[in-house]
């Protein structure tokens, strides 16, 4: 028994010494006689922001696929002097090919290229809409899609389909890689009644998929007046099958006083 007590005492002393070694020294008090300014709040660092000034000379994103580099040719006179959409081209070590289409953006998805191109004319509201063309990787078999002013095409994790929205429609579309089997997921906002009460009926919807996180879409819903004044902006989370939707945040803006001030 005494032997055990000795060991317990020894271990306790050892622990006490170890813990004393970890103790911080007391802060030194100020030795000056001058009053010190009040302490500012304890800082809480954040992660690095994702918004930084872009470099001066950005190039359009080139994409490597199937042994070719696909890119938009910005150096053509039609682009630099007349503001036309650049031509989509591809090159490898031995050749350069014009794929016979102008566009401002493109995606390579599976065995297809999706090219977004502006219409030559403004629409009947004086705005610029655009169309999307699907074609094969060599530029053949071009086919315009039914969906105008397509949003960014977001790939699903399984790599078997992608998601997008299209101007004015309250739905998220799920497309196979060929965009031939397309399923619309209707976005029924849970606060639709409130929106209808607080906002004028004459409004335009802009629905965007901000991201896909945790198996849900993060949707951004913006309503604007026909003149483009923001009326409401909200964020919603919707399940990937569209069966459930939840409002995360929403802000109404005083567009009516702005409009009356202008009038």
């Amino acid at each position, binding site marked *: 028994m005494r032997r055990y007590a000795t060991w317990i005492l020894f271990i306790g002393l050892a622990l006490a010494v170890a813990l004393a070694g970890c103790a911080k020294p007391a802060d030194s008090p100020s030795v000056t006689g001058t009053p010190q300014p009040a302490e500012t709040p304890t800082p809480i660092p954040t992660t690095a922001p994702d918004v930084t000034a872009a470099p001066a000379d950005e190039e359009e994103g080139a994409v490597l696929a199937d042994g070719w580099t696909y890119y938009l040719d910005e150096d053509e006179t039609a682009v630099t002097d007349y503001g036309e959409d650049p031509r989509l081209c591809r090159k490898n070590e031995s050749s350069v090919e014009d794929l016979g289409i102008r566009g401002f953006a493109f995606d390579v998805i599976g065995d297809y290229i999706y090219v977004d191109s502006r219409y030559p004319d403004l629409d009947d509201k004086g705005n610029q809409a655009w169309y999307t063309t699907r074609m094969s990787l060599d530029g053949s078999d071009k086919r*315009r899609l039914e969906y105008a002013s397509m949003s960014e095409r977001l790939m699903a994790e399984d790599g078997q389909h992608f998601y997008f929205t299209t101007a004015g429609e309250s739905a998220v579309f799920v497309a196979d890689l060929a965009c031939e089997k397309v399923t619309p997921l209707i976005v029924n906002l849970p606060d639709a009644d409130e929106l209808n009460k607080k906002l004028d009926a004459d409004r335009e919807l802009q629905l965007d998929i901000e991201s896909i996180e945790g198996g849900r879409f993060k949707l951004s819903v913006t309503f604007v007046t026909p003149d483009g004044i923001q009326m409401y902006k909200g964020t919603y989370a919707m399940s990937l099958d569209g069966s459930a939707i939840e409002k995360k945040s929403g802000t109404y803006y005083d567009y009516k006083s702005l409009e009356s001030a202008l009038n």
Partner: protein
Amino acid sequence: MMKRRKIISFIFAIALAVSIFAGYVPAARAEVTIDQTGTVNTPDTNLRAQPSVLSDVLVRMDRGAAVTVLEGSVGGWCKVMYQGYTGYVRSDFIDVMVTGLNDPGVIVSEAAMTSEPGDGAAIGTLAVETQVTITGSYGSYYQVNTQDKTGFVPMDCVHKKKIITLNMSATINASNVNLRSIPSTSGEIVACMKRGDKVMVHSLQDHWVKVDYQGRSGYVRGDFVTYSVSGDNYLTAMNVGMRGPAVSPLQVALRKKGFFHVAANGVYGKATRAAVKKFQQSVYLDADGIAGEQTLLLLFGKDAARIWNNFRTEMEPQKPQQNGRVWLIDWFDGMNKIMKRMTPFLVIDVRTGISWKMQRFGGYTALWHADVETVTKRDTEKMTEAWGGELNPTRRPVWVKYDGKYYAASLMGYVHNTGPTPNNGMDGQVCLHFRGSKIHSSGRLDEAHQACIMEAFYSADKLEAYISSGKV
């Protein structure tokens, strides 16, 4: 390909963009006609019950199928009849001959001209820079007329000049600027204008604008005019780093113009900057990616200042945040307590690195935000330099260096009311804002200030650069 036509009278309803948005005004033209018969150009084309991709499909049509066009393109959809079905199809999928156009264009890549769209006898090759008149269209081809030839060329070889209605006042910004009879340097000179002359700009057509000058109408190169903000408004420029409800309308407006294609998330980042540059290129402004006064005027019209009008009454308080050396701290219960009265601090202009000293002074109204003044005449001169030579109500993102720390803030250059310090070159005070601070008259947030504060917060790399170079 060209079928016998039944010409029907069909007058396009020309919709002008109302008041504040630049709109589309087609050139004067003869009666525009649309052929009543169209041809489906894509296999498995949907004929829908309503003009929406969410509407039911009535029937699918094969490539080459003939349809009867009942109504021309509205919102991108045509109303057609096919095998007894009446419905809507995307205009892109129907090739139909349109004639009676009279739109100016220019060949931008060498174009093979043919007697039929994409087919028929070869007429010749049109060189780049050839001026043409677009008289019609069929599918992806324009019917063009040039000198003694008429034929079809691919649309992507032609730049069709867009005419954008502006109706804004402007000032001539150079000396000896010619007002011409047509939008070309070969046009007759109608008048010679000098710097500072006022004009009314009616429309923008590529590099040229159509203006009224002292009772005369003509064309002047677009880079010779500086557009004017209406009334007493001033426009705060928008730049990378800004966040807030004023950025979303910018993104929405750019999207309507076809330059912004990702989510309008209220963050002025790389995508927004790229979109602004593209827009600037399209209206022949200096493409720097900063949405300054001229950019905002051309995007929103003469009432562009409205995007900076007050939107919110409250902002959710948050704990202090840090990005590099820069702190983002709320005004209420934060900076209001940190900043002592009559204690000089350094103000650094984020965009130029110019710095000067200021101090906060007391008073009831100072609780909404900080009422501040410069300390010396030299400080006033430096601040004026940061404002481009003249103090005005535009807001600018700044860092406030106080007690060794840098704080994100926004300063307005409108000198008003009084200030306690004599002989400092500033006959009054200006307003310094922090996160969540408000303006006196309405008790609301000033969105221009809040956006500038975020730009200051996210520009920590610039502060590092200024410090490293010894500028600050």
